[in-house]
């Protein structure tokens, strides 16, 4: 594409009506922004559900202040949350955070917006599929939200929807399944699109070892989404059959519910659901974490002004991680009593998969060594990711071994473990990404002071939420208690922590307000940004700001590896990938 053709296209772009340009756009950048805004709203919504639950856990039986009367007599008579409503909030918090919040933000938004720019492509390979993917995601989200208003409320069998509880649950579960089918379709379309784009639309000279690590992370992530989600779709179809036409895929024989024997044929297997669910949901953990590692790698290389330490080992570790993630799923199921041989297999694979994770994290930590670090807001978030993810990862090891897992599995320890991975881990990395790429997307920088308030407030309060969970969990507090453990013998010594955690959760919300304000204020009023405000080397910073339809003014040609910072004898401390080698 030459300069004139692009300019011609800009003229064409002007005449698109509003709804074509912003609503049903096929431009990867607009779709990325749509994904980003929608998923941020869902993140806030999922967080709100949790803030309500935290009230019940800290002050069980007391009316929820301010908003208690909004939920109706069925859910919260007199403002006091009933257990059924608590279960809905719990199930939907998990579902929304994972499937509607973090993954769409990490893959749908960042993947869509950044990948074509970083590999030097004019757009995604299939723009129409890309739009279809977003609208399928949106529909799935609407279905999920609508389920709060059906009789019996939303799904209330946990985000894992274990059978047979989910099979006999209220109507909301059927809506959950339908919503999931839309979300799985969206992820299928998105992952095919991302893989094809990365493999086919690379710019001239962009061979695989010149990819920014972010692109590698997204490539492996997309393969996980592509291959791990269909078994959950199959399981969803089977559970739908169980619920709607009365089959017994997951229903054992002779089940008695509320004193009444069920009339279904039986012969099904509840553990089968767990296998199919975790066959998705373990790779899903890496879907949550790999894009985050990709963002952190970009931000760290840029802000330490030196190449990533061990780029190749990170890449190979990521590929290995992707393969291994398909054969560790049953470590979520040690409590099912599936036999020592199978347990031994999954314990071994789980110990093996921790190795590539440690390789990646170690390489990122070593990348800091000897750098002249700029502590910008994105860098603060990326740096904090390292120890936070480290805590999340290391606390996972006892859960990967059956003897310790059997003690810890149903306690708050597990909640603390995976939230360290996903909340101060992945979500911090996503914040880093937002602050990092915001200038490219909007042409304005976000305010640094507000960013630092957001960062320090979030870092402190989030640790006060999740660290006490380890203490409660080790004390043996069950993670499925509606009253936070008031009537639970093991919990008495650590009950006071409920209030600490709840107050920390609400404080965390308060510290998101500067971010929300900063985000919208900076779109219009933020300091104007140049095309390459961070002096970065990768291709996305070689585009106009914000990039027009078709992205690049001249077709980019790549001559270098992604992170050529502080090259000896170079005229400046960064050498863009497009800069030819001197003869």
């Amino acid at each position, binding site marked *: 594409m030459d300069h004139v053709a692009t300019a011609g296209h800009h003229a064409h772009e002007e005449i698109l009506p509003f709804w074509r340009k912003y609503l049903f756009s096929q431009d990867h950048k607009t779709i990325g922004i749509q994904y980003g805004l929608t998923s941020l709203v869902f993140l806030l919504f999922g967080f709100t559900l949790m803030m309500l639950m935290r009230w019940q856990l800290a002050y069980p039986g007391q009316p929820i202040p301010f908003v208690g009367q909004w939920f109706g007599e069925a859910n919260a008579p007199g403002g006091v949350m009933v257990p059924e409503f608590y279960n809905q909030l719990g199930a939907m918090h998990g579902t929304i955070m994972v499937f509607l919040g973090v993954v769409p933000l990490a893959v749908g938004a960042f993947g869509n917006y950044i990948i074509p720019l970083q590999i030097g492509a004019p*757009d995604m390979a*299939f723009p129409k599929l890309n739009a279809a993917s977003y609208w399928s995601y949106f529909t799935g989200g609407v279905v999920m939200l609508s389920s709060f208003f059906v009789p019996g409320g939303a799904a209330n069998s946990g985000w894992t929807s274990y059978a047979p509880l989910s099979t006999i649950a209220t109507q909301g579960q059927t809506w959950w399944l339908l919503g999931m089918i839309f979300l799985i379709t969206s992820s299928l379309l998105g992952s095919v699109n991302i893989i094809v784009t990365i493999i086919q639309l690379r710019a001239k000279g962009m061979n695989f070892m010149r990819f920014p690590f972010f692109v590698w992370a997204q490539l492996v992530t997309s393969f996980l989404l592509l291959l791990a989600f269909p078994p959950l779709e*199959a399981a969803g179809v089977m559970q739908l059959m169980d619920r709607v036409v009365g089959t017994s895929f997951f229903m054992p024989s002779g089940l008695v519910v509320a004193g009444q024997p069920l009339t279904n044929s039986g012969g099904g297997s509840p553990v089968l659901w767990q296998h199919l669910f975790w066959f998705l949901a373990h790779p899903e953990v890496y879907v949550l974490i790999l894009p985050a590692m990709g963002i952190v790698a970009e931000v760290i290389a840029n802000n330490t002004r030196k190449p990533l330490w061990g780029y190749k080992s990170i890449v190979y570790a990521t590929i290995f991680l992707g393969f291994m993630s398909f054969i560790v799923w049953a470590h979520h199921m040690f409590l099912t009593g599936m036999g020592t041989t199978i347990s031994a297999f999954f314990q071994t694979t789980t110990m093996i998969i921790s190795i590539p994770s440690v390789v990646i994290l170690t390489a990122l930590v070593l990348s800091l060594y000897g750098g002249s670090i700029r502590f910008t807001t994105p860098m603060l978030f990326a740096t904090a990711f390292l120890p936070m993810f480290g805590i999340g990862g290391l606390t996972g090891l006892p859960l990967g071994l059956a003897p310790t897992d059997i003690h810890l599995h149903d306690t708050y320890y597990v909640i603390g473990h995976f939230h360290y991975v996903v909340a101060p881990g992945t979500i911090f990395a996503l914040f880093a990404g937002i602050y990092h790429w915001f200038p490219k997307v909007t042409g304005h920088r976000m305010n640094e002071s507000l960013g630092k308030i957001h960062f320090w407030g979030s870092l402190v309060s989030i640790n006060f939420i999740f660290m006490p969970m380890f203490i409660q969990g080790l004390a043996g507090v069950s993670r499925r208690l509606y009253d936070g453990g008031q009537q639970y013998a093991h919990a008495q010594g650590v009950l006071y922590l409920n209030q600490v955690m709840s107050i920390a959760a609400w404080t965390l919300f308060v510290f998101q307000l500067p971010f929300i304000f900063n985000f919208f204020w900076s779109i219009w009023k933020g300091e104007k940004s140049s095309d390459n405000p961070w002096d970065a080397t990768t291709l996305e910073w070689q585009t106009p700001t914000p990039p027009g339809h078709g992205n690049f003014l001249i077709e980019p040609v790549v001559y270098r590896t992604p992170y050529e910072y502080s090259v000896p004898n170079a005229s400046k401390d960064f050498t863009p990938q497009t800069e030819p080698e001197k003869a």
Partner: protein
Amino acid sequence: MQIPYTVAPRQDTGLFNAKLGIWLFLASEVMLFGALFSSLVLLRTGAPEWPHGWDHLDWKLATFNTIVLISSSVTMVMAWASLMMKDFSKFRIYLGGTILLALLFLVVKYFEYTHEFHLGIFPSTSAFFAVYFTMTGLHGLHILGGIIVNGYLWGPGARMWKTDPARFTNRIEIAGLYWHFVDLVWIFLFPVLYLL
């Protein structure tokens, strides 16, 4: 703005975009049906007794249907081959044949289902019939999807032959790959459900 490699293959990968796309899609389909087959294995090995398909299902109709689907795969290849030889009218005949054979498959399946319903056999009857109806039903939906795509390419979609014949030929190839996959699923379903 033009997206590269929509028609001509990229030199280093040897693929045009949609071809890689359809293979990835089929990989995910393998995982979908793979999960169902695995569930069948798990339920069957865990069951105290499991009926033989031929005792309850009409294996003769299913054999006929197998032949119908394999024939439709042959006509699908011929449709693509006709386009490669620039013979559009033959392409119309072969692709039309594929669509009619696919419809015939569904009609036969409809008679099978209604016959079973008349005998009082439903998905809720037993684990075996739950598997049978779910898997053949999902496969039937894939057949229906194929009919819609092929119908579009036979009718309004065929206008592309005038404007961009290379791209249209690619599309038929892609649709064909999908169709062969759907056929292949049946070739696994037939013995597993009717003959074991």
